[in-house]
């Protein structure tokens, strides 16, 4: 995936173009034509597949830009018969949309920052410090990696309910403050860092906290960025947990809030779709910005 973003259109130099070269060698007279036909065919196939995959997103954007009657008129069409921005203007009044947006930012943002801190602290201990029980702690983390979070749902709700934390940011955020996956992910990365700087600092008498904060964390910036996007995307998109933890829209996040409106405001399709588009936008933009390291992060965690 690495070279994709930078060199998508330089086939002759990329290593996996041997096939077309081989074909050209075998039939020098018609090789160029065949290669060209092949390139056009695959490019067309790529466009068709991409459009098919993106259809729901494309349709959603286009539908959010058409008047209400146009959405519900038969036969349905992909391209709007007329355009309007009214849904985007109205949504802020008609739905508590600003609240939903703010809630999602607070929830996903706080969880990301807090869990990056706690995950990296735990990962530092597991990867860089020597102590008795280290293996045992790591195995426990691995086991937790496998637990389906749904199992804990009922008692967790019960616990937070007894503490009076249902429908509060604290109740939503604190159980997400750390994450077995994050600890595992960062531990793997920390293990790969060179020991020299850290040992120099230790000989100089720096405290472990300072080594972690000033030496290891700055070196781990790419991993932190990737994990941060993981956390942010996961929590921004999460439906089940915010759905359970919120009893009204004052604390609901976008997926939970919109799925509620899906049931209630069946007549206001345009608003719902404009809200859906707006709620997807930040994650899509973030992904396109950090695409490479994100995708690489997935590929490498899959391998480790």
């Amino acid at each position, binding site marked *: 995936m690495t070279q994709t973003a930078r060199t998508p259109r330089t086939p002759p130099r990329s290593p996996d173009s041997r096939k077309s070269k081989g074909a050209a060698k075998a039939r020098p007279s018609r090789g160029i034509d065949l290669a060209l036909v092949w390139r056009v065919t695959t490019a067309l196939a790529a466009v068709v597949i*991409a459009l098919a995959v993106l259809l729901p997103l494309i349709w959603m954007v286009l539908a959010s830009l058409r008047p209400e009657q146009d959405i519900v008129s038969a036969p349905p069409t992909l391209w709007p018969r007329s355009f309007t921005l009214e849904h985007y203007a109205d949504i802020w009044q008609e739905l508590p949309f600003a609240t939903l947006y703010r809630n999602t930012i607070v929830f996903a943002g706080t969880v990301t920052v807090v869990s990056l801190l706690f995950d990296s602290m735990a990962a530092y201990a597991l990867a860089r*410090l020597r102590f008795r029980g280290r293996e045992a702690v790591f195995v426990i983390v691995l086991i937790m990696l496998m637990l389906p979070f749904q199992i804990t749902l009922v*008692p967790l709700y019960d616990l937070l309910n007894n503490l009076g934390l249902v429908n509060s940011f604290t109740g939503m955020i604190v159980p997400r403050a750390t994450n077995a996956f994050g600890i595992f992910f960062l531990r793997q990365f920390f293990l790969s860092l060179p020991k020299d700087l850290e040992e120099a600092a230790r000989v100089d008498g720096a405290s472990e906290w300072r080594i972690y904060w000033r030496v290891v964390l700055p070196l781990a910036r790419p991993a932190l960025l990737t994990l941060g996007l993981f956390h942010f995307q996961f929590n921004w998109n999460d439906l089940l947990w915010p759905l359970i933890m919120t009893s009204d829209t004052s604390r609901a996040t976008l997926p939970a809030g919109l799925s509620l409106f899906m049931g209630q405001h069946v007549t206001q399709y345009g608003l719902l779709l404009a809200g859906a588009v707006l709620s997807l936008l930040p994650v899509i933009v973030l992904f396109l910005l950090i695409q490479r390291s994100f995708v690489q992060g997935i590929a490498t965690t899959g391998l480790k």
Partner: protein
Amino acid sequence: MTTPATAQPGAAEPGAARRGATQRGGATQRGGAATARTAGAWRPLRSRRTQRGRQTRAAWLFLAPSLTALAVFVVWPMFQAAYLSFTDYNLMQAASWVGLENYRRLLDDPEAWNALENTLVYAAVSTPVSVVLALALALFLNRSMALRGFLRTAVFLPFVVSLGVVSIAWAFLLDADIGLLAHWLSGVGVTTQQGWLEDPSYAMPAVIAVGVWKNLGFYMVMYLAGLQGIPPELHDAARVDGASAWQRLRRVTWPLLANQTMLITIMAAIGTLQAFDQIYVMTHGGPFFQTETLVVFTYRMGFERNEFGYAAAVSWVLLVLVFALSMLQFGYFRRRAVTL
């Protein structure tokens, strides 16, 4: 990076670092840091036991926040779920012990069996479909071609967006009256009387399709990583020996992707056992419970009907299923860790 830490310890240190240092009872620590130059001269002479003790103390302090949170919000709830599954807890009154009653009820409950069946059908259909499609896409995208980066991004994008939100669009697209996809499908002769999500025989395939659509890009990327790990010489050698493209796929690529396939299959299976978002938004488990999976059933029992004891019992059935699969994955991880 060490320069600010050693040169100006007091001035540049953020508040958090200061607290971390003092927390560890480091009066001597701070003294040591302040006189970094001289400390460097004698510190290595200190006994290894002190070094070791220092690291142990630091390690547990670093682990404390995470381990506390995991204990309170993961480990305890898990055991509490086990306890609740033997009670009739309903949030309103104290739990009373009912022994195996919930599990006995589970055995006799056609709705629970239905949910289990739907979950297994969902996993059994969507796992192989995801794996095959992901492999096909990865093979297609592993060669050099125009628009390759664009296609990779497009296929990966569904994985990034909220399934709960995009399921809204899918519900519209499959609607009987205003659904564009339903309209197109009827144009090529694939019709349903009531609309895809209202038709009991089509709702499950529709929900599965959306689940596959969501995760396809993720598995594709993992396959691409695997494909890029295959040394090109192997294919060259096979080509020289006159192997056809199919033979090379069958005899070279596929065997070398066995690890990837195994990992992706287990991950896909675990993921599908926990399907919730697309079902909740698109069908709510309907029509006639045709798409109700175990997680949706747990949600309905626990959070819509307040039968928490029963919901906990159902969730333990899910735990057993997922844990069995996870152990496979764990064993696999360990085996690979040795070979790497």
